[in-house]
């Protein structure tokens, strides 16, 4: 799995199970024009996923995103596994 590629990992049956869901909110949802999408990217890091998303959607750096996996904030070094739910979290502004 290259650092900048988001290839589909075909290892036996893993391609079916190895799905990651990515959630988009607020300004990111406006940008992507969808609330979620799925990728077959098991085993890559959050950083690698983010680099691919920037290829798909243009520069995201100005949004100051944090990342959550399965509803917990994680660093970009987090390695994604099958079934993980990743959320791109723009600066929160509740209250």
């Amino acid at each position, binding site marked *: 799995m290259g650092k900048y590629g988001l290839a589909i990992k075909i290892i036996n049956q893993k391609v079916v199970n190895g799905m990651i869901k990515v959630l988009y909110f*607020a*300004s990111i949802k406006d940008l992507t024009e969808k609330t979620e999408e799925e990728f077959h990217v098991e085993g890559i890091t959050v950083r690698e996923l983010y680099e691919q998303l920037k290829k798909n959607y243009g520069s995201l750096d*100005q949004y100051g995103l944090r990342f959550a996996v399965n509803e917990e904030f994680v660093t970009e070094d987090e390695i994604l596994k099958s079934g993980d739910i990743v959320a791109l979290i723009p600066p929160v*502004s*509740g209250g």
Partner: protein
Amino acid sequence: MVKKFEITDQPLEERRDTDKVLNSSHGAVTTFTGHVREWTNGLRTEYLSFEAYTSMAEKKMEEIGEEVKQKWKGCDIAIAHRVGLLNISDIAVVVTVSSPHRKAAYEANEYAMERLKQDVPIWKKEIWDNGEVWVGHQNYKPKGSERND
């Protein structure tokens, strides 16, 4: 079941959670309500829209509740945040803290609001008559667009 940490699309009332947190050894209750302001430094807001990552937001609010109960022994707390379209003066958030003692009730409430604004995945969009913006997401941001901090 009583839900102490809740994202809801229903209107919020200030006193909704007092009965959930008050017990017979508590003498003090603090309630914070964040309301939609019409006027902010001369800019007129038409209405607000809040969006949440609901499941994570409720989980994070519950974690904040656990932090509060660790830091201020004997306290209890409930947090509710509304999503969807809110009009002027509508309540966006209610934080209710009960405590045996007064000082802890103030401190714990303020702490919970600070933590909520740091880590709970809720996003606010301001809508004026000539545009709209997700607060804090872009370079352009009207001066003083924060609600209550």
